[in-house]
C-alpha cells in the first residue's frame, strides 16, 4: 500500500522503510532485539548481559528500582549512550548508531521526563522544527497535519499556543507527535505519568494503546508505578542490579510484580498518626491572595501546626508554587497575611523569614539552592551567620562533620558542581537548620530515586519530630499520600482540602488535580479559596 505523500513538511520523515507513511495509513513492521548489552560506569556494571526482544504492536513495561539499569538501557537503545558491548538488531539487521538523531532515523525515539522542546516557540513551530529540512517550511500544510494527528488522539493542543504556557502533559503530547512525525516506530517513555492528572493519563494511555494496536508501534514504558504498568502494558521486563531478573506477560497483580522486582513483598512505609490538635500553630495564612498573569490564588487560609506535614497537590502552574513562595516572602502577596509564630511577616523579605525560622527549598537544586562555583565550605559559611568576619577553619570543620553525618561523597573544598545530583541534595539537607520553625519545600525529591527520596524524608521527618511544621509540594501523588497529614489540592488557583487523607487514594487525588472537585468535596471539606 503505497500512498503518494504530498505534505509540505519533510516527506521522507513521514515515509517509512517500506515506503508507507505512519499514523493514518496502516501498520508498520518492526522488531527490536537486544543481544548481550553491557555497560559499565567505573566499577558499576549498569547493564550486565541484557538480552531482550520487543515485538511489533506490543507495549512493554520496563520495571526496576532506580539504579537497576533501566534508564541506562533505554538511553543505549535511543542512542543517547553507546553500549560497551552487545548489539541492537532491528528486523534482524544489526544497527549501529551514533546519537539520538541516528536512532530516530532507525525508528526509535525516546520521550524524556522533561520534554526537550524549544520554550520560545509555539506548538506549530515546535512541530515543524526538526521535521522540515526546508528553509521556509509550509506552515499551512504542517498545521493541517498537526490538526489531523491531535484529532486522532484527542490531544488538546492548539497550534499557536506558546510552549511556555503548556502543561507538562501537553508538552508530552507534542513531543510524542513530533517523534511520530519523524517516523518513529518504537516509542520509549520515561516516567511519563509524573506531574499529569488522571484524565491526562487516560488520554495518553489511550493514544499509546491506539498506536500499538492500529499502527503496530512498539511502546516501552519505563516506570516504577506498578498501577500504570498494569493498566497499560502487555508484558513486563524487570531489571535489578543491571540484569534482567524476570519477564512475563500481563495481567499480573501488583504484589506479583513487586515480588519480581524485590524478591519479596515490601510493606508500604507506615506513618504514625500523630494527634496535632494541641500542637502550637507555627504559621498561619490569612486570606492570602497571590496573583500572576496565568493564575491567581485568592483567600487562602490555613494554619500549620508544629510537627504537621501539609502536602500541596496540583498540576504545574495551578498556583501551589506561587502560594508556597508567598509563604516565605519570595512572592508578592496582593492581599491577606502570612504570620509566623503569630508575627505578621506579610511581604517582608525572605531574610526576615529565615530569621523567624522559616526555610524555603526550591525544586531546582543547582539553579535555586546551591551556587555553582562555591565550595561546600563556602556554602556552610553562608548559612552560618557568624558576624562579619568568617571563621574559615570553623566553617570547614562544621562542613566536614556534616559530610560525615550525611554521608556525602565529596570533600569540603570541592566546588558544589563537582558532586553528583544525589550528593548535592544531601548537601542541601546538611545546610538546613536542625530545628527550623517551618520548612516550605517546592518538590523535595525531584529527580531522585526511591532510596534517595526515602532518605530525604527521613531527614525531613526527623525535623518534623522535633516540632518543625512542613509544607511541601510534589507532582508525585504517592509521596503526597504517604507523608502528608493534610493535603490541599490546587486547580487553576482554586484550593480544596482533601477531606480525609488517610482514606484518600492516589486515583482520587489524580482526578482532583485534574479539576474534578465536586465528587470529593463533602460538607466538611472546606473550600479554602475561591475566585474573588
Amino acid at each position: 500500500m503505497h500512498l503518494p505523500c504530498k505534505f509540505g513538511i519533510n516527506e521522507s520523515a513521514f515515509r517509512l522503510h517500506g515506503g508507507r507513511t505512519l499514523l493514518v495509513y496502516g501498520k508498520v513492521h518492526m522488531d527490536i532485539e537486544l543481544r548481550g548489552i553491557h555497560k559499565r560506569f567505573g566499577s558499576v556494571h549498569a547493564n550486565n548481559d541484557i538480552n531482550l526482544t520487543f515485538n511489533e504492536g506490543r507495549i512493554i513495561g520496563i520495571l526496576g528500582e532506580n539504579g537497576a539499569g533501566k534508564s541506562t538501557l533505554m538511553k543505549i537503545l535511543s542512542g543517547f549512550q553507546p553500549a560497551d558491548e552487545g548489539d541492537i538488531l532491528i528486523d534482524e539487521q544489526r544497527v549501529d548508531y551514533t546519537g539520538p538523531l541516528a536512532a530516530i532515523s532507525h525508528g526509535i525515539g525516546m520521550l524524556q521526563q522533561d520534554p526537550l522542546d524549544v520554550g520560545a516557540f509555539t506548538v506549530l513551530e515546535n512541530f515543524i522544527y526538526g521535521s522540515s529540512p526546508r528553509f521556509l517550511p509550509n506552515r499551512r500544510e504542517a498545521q493541517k497535519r498537526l490538526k489531523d494527528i491531535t484529532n486522532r488522539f484527542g490531544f488538546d493542543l492548539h497550534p499557536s499556543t506558546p510552549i511556555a504556557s503548556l502543561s507538562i502533559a501537553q508538552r508530552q503530547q507534542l513531543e510524542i507527535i513530533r517523534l511520530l512525525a519523524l517516523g518513529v516506530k518504537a516509542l520509549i517513555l520515561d516516567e511519563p505519568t509524573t506531574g499529569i492528572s488522571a484524565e491526562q493519563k487516560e488520554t495518553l494511555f489511550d493514544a499509546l494503546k491506539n498506536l500499538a494496536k492500529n499502527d503496530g508501534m512498539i511502546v516501552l514504558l519505563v516506570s516504577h508505578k506498578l498501577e500504570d504498568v498494569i493498566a497499560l502494558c502487555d508484558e513486563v521486563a524487570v531489571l535489578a542490579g543491571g540484569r534482567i531478573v524476570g519477564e512475563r506477560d500481563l495481567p499480573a497483580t501488583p504484589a506479583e510484580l513487586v515480588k519480581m522486582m524485590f524478591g519479596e513483598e515490601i510493606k508500604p512505609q507506615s506513618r504514625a498518626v500523630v494527634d496535632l490538635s494541641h500542637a502550637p500553630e507555627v504559621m498561619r495564612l490569612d486570606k492570602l491572595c497571590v496573583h500572576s498573569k496565568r493564575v491567581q490564588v485568592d483567600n487562602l487560609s490555613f494554619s500549620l501546626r508544629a510537627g504537621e506535614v501539609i502536602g500541596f497537590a496540583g498540576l504545574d502552574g495551578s498556583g501551589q508554587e506561587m502560594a508556597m513562595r508567598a509563604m516565605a516572602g519570595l512572592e508578592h502577596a496582593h492581599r491577606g497575611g502570612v504570620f509566623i509564630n503569630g508575627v505578621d511577616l506579610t511581604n517582608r523579605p525572605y531574610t526576615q523569614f529565615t530569621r523567624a525560622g522559616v526555610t524555603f527549598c526550591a525544586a531546582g537544586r543547582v539553579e535555586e539552592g546551591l551556587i555553582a562555583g562555591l565550595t561546600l565550605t563556602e556554602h556552610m559559611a553562608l548559612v552560618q551567620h557568624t558576624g562579619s568576619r568568617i571563621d574559615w577553619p570553623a566553617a570547614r570543620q562544621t562542613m566536614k562533620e556534616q559530610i560525615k553525618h550525611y554521608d556525602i561523597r565529596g570533600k569540603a573544598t570541592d566546588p558544589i558542581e563537582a558532586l553528583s545530583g544525589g550528593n548535592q541534595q544531601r548537601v542541601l539537607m546538611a545546610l538546613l537548620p536542625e530545628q527550623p520553625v517551618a520548612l516550605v519545600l517546592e518538590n523535595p525529591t525531584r529527580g531522585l530515586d526511591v532510596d534517595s527520596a526515602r532518605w530525604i524524608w527521613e531527614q525531613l521527618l526527623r525535623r518534623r519530630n522535633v516540632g518543625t511544621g512542613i509544607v511541601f509540594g510534589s507532582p508525585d501523588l504517592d509521596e503526597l499520600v504517604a507523608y502528608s497529614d493534610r493535603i490541599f489540592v490546587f486547580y487553576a488557583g482554586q484550593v480544596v482540602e482533601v477531606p480525609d487523607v488517610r482514606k484518600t487514594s492516589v486515583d482520587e487525588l489524580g482526578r482532583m488535580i485534574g479539576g474534578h472537585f465536586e465528587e470529593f468535596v463533602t460538607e466538611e471539606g472546606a473550600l479554602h479559596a475561591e475566585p474573588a
Partner: protein
Amino acid sequence: MQNPRETALQLGFAALAIIASLALSAGLIILIDREPLEVIETLWQGAFGSSERVAGVFNFWIPLTLSSLGLIVTFRAGLWNIGVEGQIMAGAVFASGVALFVPAPQVIRVPLAIAASVVGGVLWALLAGVLKTRLGVHEIFGGVALNAIANVITNFLVGNLWSPPGGNALDTGPFDDAARIPFYSDGFQTSIAMIVLVIVIAIAVVVMLSGTRWGLELKATGKNPRSALLLGVATEKTSLSAFAFCGALAGLAGAYRVLFFYGTLRPLASGGVGFLGILVALLVGNQALWVPLVTFAFGALLFGSTRLRITQQLDASIAKTLQGTLVLLVILSGGLRARLLNRSNQPAAEPTTTSEPNPVITEAKSYE
C-alpha cells in the same frame, strides 16, 4: 583554595599571554619601520627616566587603581558596572563644588572636597543600582545612560553655571591653591598621602573579599543570586552595597583627577580611567591582589608612551594597542586554560547510574 598545579598553570598562561602580546606589538612596530627595542627603551625612559616621571606614573596609578578596585567589587557581585566613568565624573563634580565655593583653609577644604566626591560617586552608583534592583534596568544600559548624563551635567556646569567671568568654557578656571591636594616635592609631584590611602584600600579590598561575610555574599550573589537569596543573602542589599563601594572609590578617583591632576573641572576629566579599570579587572581575573601591580604597569605604559611622539615620532596610541592585545590574549589564555583543566579532570567526574541529575542532556551534547 587552589592547588599549586593550577596556580602554576595560571601563571604560566599569563606569562605566555604577555609574551605573545609583546611579540605582536613588536611585530606591529617593525611593520611601521621602527626598532622595537628602541621603542621599549623610550617607554622605559618615559616612565622611569627621572623622579618627576615616576611621580607622573603614580598620578595615573592612583585613580586607575581606585576605579579598578571598585570594579573588582562590583564584578564579584556579578554587576557590570559600566557606569564607573559617570561615577568618577560625579565625584569630580562634587569635589569641584566644594573646591570652588567653600572658602575654607586647605586642611578643611581638601578633606571636605574629598568627602563630597565620595558622596557624589556613591549617589551616582546607587542610582544605577536602584535602576537595576528595583526597576530591572540592566546595569550596563543604566550605566551607559548615566555616563552620558554625567558628562552633559559637567559640560553644563563648566560652560554655564560654574564658568568663571570671562572664562573660556573649557574649564571652571584654576582652583585656589587651598583647594588642591598638595604634592610631595617639586621633584616628585605626587601625593604620598593618596598613595598610602590607595595601598590601604587595596589591602582592605583583598581582605574583605576573602575573609568577610560581605565578600562571600558578593561572590554568592554574583554567581547565582536566586540561590544566594535562599541561602540567606539579602541579595538586593548586597548588590547595592557593591555599587556604593565602587561609587565611593570612583568618586575618590574623580577627586584626584580634579583636585590634583588638573586643578580645575573640565569635561571628560576622568580621562577614561574608568573604562581602563574595566580592562584591568578583566585582566586580573577579578583577583584584587594583582590590581596595584597591573595598574602600575598600565600607568607606566600610558605615561611612558607620551614621550614616544617626541623621540620616535610615534603616536602614543601604540601603548593602547599593546594594552588591548594584552587584555585580549590574557582572557583568551584563561579560556584555553579552563579547557585544558576540564579535559584533564574529566575522568574524575564519571557519571554513576544512580545519582546524575540529568545525564541525558549532557551526554546528548557530546554527540553533536
